[in-house]
């Protein structure tokens, strides 16, 4: 498999980088991608980072996130004709949201494979694997204090979407998004304070280092 990756990487032609926040350029690129599949590559390269990281925050393993990311872009390409190009980013993340919901639903079908994903890599020791898992779950643990609704909104905020785009992606009103994110902030604030307090107590009980 790695040889296959290398051989195709050699022939890869890099597309002009697009700024995901430049709506006008994105709209133009969406139109170009409709008539030319090569145009879609520029969109992919512009959005793969936020979409992959969005999937990482929801899924347990980078492999599952990569799988979901590829599914998001395949669905996006398939539905590109019906997309309002001025709202591409929110549309793409609504697809990502739906793909991740599907992943959760089909998760028990792949339980054994999910377990396999969590095996240590051949290239790292068990200790390194534990440290990697701990690090990866930091944002997961933080967002766990939120309701699913609030979590979706904060995850989309972390993906770089504005309030209006989040409302479009989730099919909600801007007002309800504002309300939910304010409540999410209050919960996160409490979680941060509790974390700080527990760290302080741990320091007191163990003494200064």
């Amino acid at each position: 498999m790695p040889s296959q990756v290398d051989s195709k990487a050699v022939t890869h032609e890099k597309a002009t980088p697009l700024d995901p926040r430049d709506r006008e350029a994105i709209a133009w690129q969406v139109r170009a991608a409709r008539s030319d599949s090569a145009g879609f590559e520029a969109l992919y390269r512009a959005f793969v980072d936020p979409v992959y990281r969005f999937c990482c925050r929801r899924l347990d393993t980078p492999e599952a996130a990569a799988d979901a990311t590829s599914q998001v872009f395949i669905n996006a390409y398939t539905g590109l004709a019906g997309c309002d190009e001025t709202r591409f980013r929110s549309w793409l993340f609504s697809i990502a949201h739906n793909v991740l919901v599907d992943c959760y639903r089909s998760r028990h079908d792949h339980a054994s494979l999910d377990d396999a994903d969590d095996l240590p890599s051949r290239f790292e020791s068990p200790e390194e694997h534990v440290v990697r898992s701990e690090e990866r779950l930091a944002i997961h643990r933080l967002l766990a204090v939120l309701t699913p609704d609030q979590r979706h909104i904060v995850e989309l905020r972390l993906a770089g979407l504005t309030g209006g785009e989040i409302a479009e992606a989730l099919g909600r009103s801007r007002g309800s998004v504002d309300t939910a994110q304010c409540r999410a902030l209050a919960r996160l604030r409490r979680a941060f304070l509790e974390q700080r307090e527990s760290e302080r107590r741990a320091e007191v009980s163990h003494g200064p280092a």
Partner: protein
Amino acid sequence: MDPRSERSTTRAREQAVGRLWDALQESGALEEPGVTPEEIETIAQVHDADDSQSPDDDLVQSIWMRVQADVESNATVAARKASNGHGLIQAVAFEGDIGLPQAPAPEEARPRRRKIESVRFAVWRGTRTVAVSAIAGFIAGVMVIGIGARIAMRVAAMFSDDSLQGARTENLETVGEITVGGTISLLLNGGFAGIAGGIVFLAIRRWLPPSGWRRALAIGFVLFAAGGWVVLEQGENMDYRRFGIAGVNICLFTLLPFLFGMAIGPVTDWVDGWMNAALKRTSVWAVAATTLLIVLSLPMTLGAVALLVFDPSPLTLLLLLPVVARATGFLGRRLRLSIPSMTARWLPQVALGAVCVVGLYLSAVAVIRIL
């Protein structure tokens, strides 16, 4: 505080938090009146706590290969998983992290079929793209150049002396006679010129602003610069001075390529959307008619491009360079050839710039010659 004013205060604060977070997303600014420092700190802490890793170049490439495989075969991952039954194992093994047995990739399992599908897809995509530009060019050409030229001629006739009624123009038409054949010929000429303009637009549209007025003005200017001197027939057509007012005639006729350029972008978008919708219809007749239209537009496109090729002017040949570069880039990507960016990008842009500069100079010379 009464409940109503409390609600409105809460709402205002929620909006302020929303605006603050928007500003952070858009410009990185982290201040907004009405938002408490605690809330600002919490937002900053959430962003700081985000430890999700960006994909490295290899992972980006491997995901793209998976997407491309499905995009080019026009299949979905669901179908792919169904076909080999090991979609997730394949994805995991692909990264080389764990030693699971590797499922055969679809490319390896059915190489010949995938190659045929890939070539078929490339041919269909290329044909459809050219057809959209040609059809859009024809429509915009008939509407703007054909009808526009007829209007311009009427205006010239209005300002002409009555004594010129019945005179012969340099194109051997009789002044004052509006014939059906002449009008159709004018519209068709406009349509054919429009197809060539549509192909030029297809070739250079990636270098233009994405949409709106800026794109319209840019392509309008390019076609005005490249085609103005052609419309003025290098100042050799004395009809510009003979009929009506020379200045008005020059303005009206050189405006046509500019207006065509302004129209071609929106018309292309419209034809593209219309074709997408037509090809998705369940009616076999609608799909067949659209496909026939696409196929028929190809000989017309070849005819229009041949007009450019066989035109003796080196300037119009230079205008073909972006078209050739665009076609080469498309084929190169499909045939997986690496084309130097100098050839694919910079050379056609320089050629286009040269066409504009020399075209404007020739237009100026033609105007001086007419006046």
